[in-house]
Structure formats: C-alpha cells, structure tokens
C-alpha cells in the first residue's frame, strides 16, 4: 500500500530553534522524496527533495535526512524564523514517465514564536 506517515501533526518552536518533521513510508519502490511548504490559501511550494542514493541534502536552512533501511526521512529547519510558520508536507513517488504521482503525508503545522 502506498502510504506516507508524517509526524508530528503540529509543532511549536522558538525563533532560532530547530524544527524537525519526520516521515515514514512503506513502499520500497518510492525513489523521490520532496518536501512542500504551504501557506494558508496558497498551493504547496516545493522546498527541497532527495533521492535514496544520498543520506542527506542541504539547501540553506533546510536539510533532508534520509534513512533507506528504516524507510524514514526527515526535514530539519535550522534557525527557524516566524516566516517559516506554515504547513509542511512530505511526499513520495515512483519515477516513471515525465512526472510523478505524489503520495503526500498528512501535514505538520509549524508555528515559530517570535
């Protein structure tokens, strides 16, 4: 069954702190793992993505850690800022064709306190 489980459902951190969101998947055929950020009333925006051939990818303050054997991956937001307050979704897909059918997690509502 293609399913992605995301935790926590909500997260509150202080400005400057580290936000960590975790996801676990079941389908070992998944080979592309993006994270999306969504603000109220907006569509999801692609933040960062990773493939299972690497264990970590960093872009600015955002880092994905990937554990293939555990079938888990996580998003770390360093030096969290109030502007990072949004809902974050992990997703997974199987390569094929020119696009991918994304399976999303249930989302994490992040609040960064000033």
């Amino acid at each position, binding site marked *: 069954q293609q399913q992605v489980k995301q935790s926590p459902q909500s997260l509150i951190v202080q400005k400057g702190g580290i936000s960590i969101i975790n996801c676990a998947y079941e389908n070992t055929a998944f080979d592309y793992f993006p994270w999306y950020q969504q603000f109220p009333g907006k569509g999801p925006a692609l933040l960062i993505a990773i493939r299972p051939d690497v264990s970590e990818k960093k872009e600015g303050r955002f880092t994905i850690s990937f554990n293939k054997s555990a079938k888990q991956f996580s998003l770390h937001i360093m030096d969290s800022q109030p502007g990072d307050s949004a809902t974050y*979704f992990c997703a997974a897909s199987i390569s094929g064709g*020119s696009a991918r*059918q994304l399976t999303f997690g249930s989302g994490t509502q992040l609040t960064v306190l000033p």
Partner: protein
Amino acid sequence: DAGVTQSPTHLIKTRGQQVTLRCSPISGHKSVSWYQQVLGQGPQFIFQYYEKEERGRGNFPDRFSARQFPNYSSELNVNALLLGDSALYLCASSLRGEQYFGPGTRLTVT
C-alpha cells in the same frame, strides 16, 4: 516566468451540479497533474496527463474526468457534485519530474 495558473479562484456549487476547473501549466511544461486537498489533509492524486494522454488516475469515482489540450492546459470536470467534493483542487505542472503547484481552486458544494 509565470507560474501555474488556475481558474476560477473560488467556486460555489449546489449538490448535483457539474463543475469545470481550468489550469495553465508553466511555459514549456508538458505534464499536468490534478490533486484534491480536503481541509486539514494532504493533497490526494486525481489525474496525470502528459502530451494530452492520461498517464495516471487516482482512486476517485468516474464522476471525475479531465483532459489536456494541445497547448498543455488542462480541465478537470466533476459531475453530480456531492458535499464531500468540497475541497481545494490543485493543479501541478512538471517538466523533468519536479512538480510545481498552482494556487488552487476552492470549491464549495452546498
């Protein structure tokens, strides 16, 4: 460059009616996917089109249909609307696998 555009922004329909949602992909993108996002949940895959052909279909009833035009824009049609169809409908375009989402159409069924 302009991102993915969707129309209308908001829509209110009555149960049993039909609705058509429209999407224009990023210039140069040939693939369009549709997702349904119910409030408080992650998006759920509905359809994927590439070069005007259906390449994937999610677990949605036959009341949902879509098509892609020669200019790569797309329409999503939903017939016999139910209250449970109330959601944000998202369109995503893709060139080399990465999907970029539009702002969505908020559909309310009363």
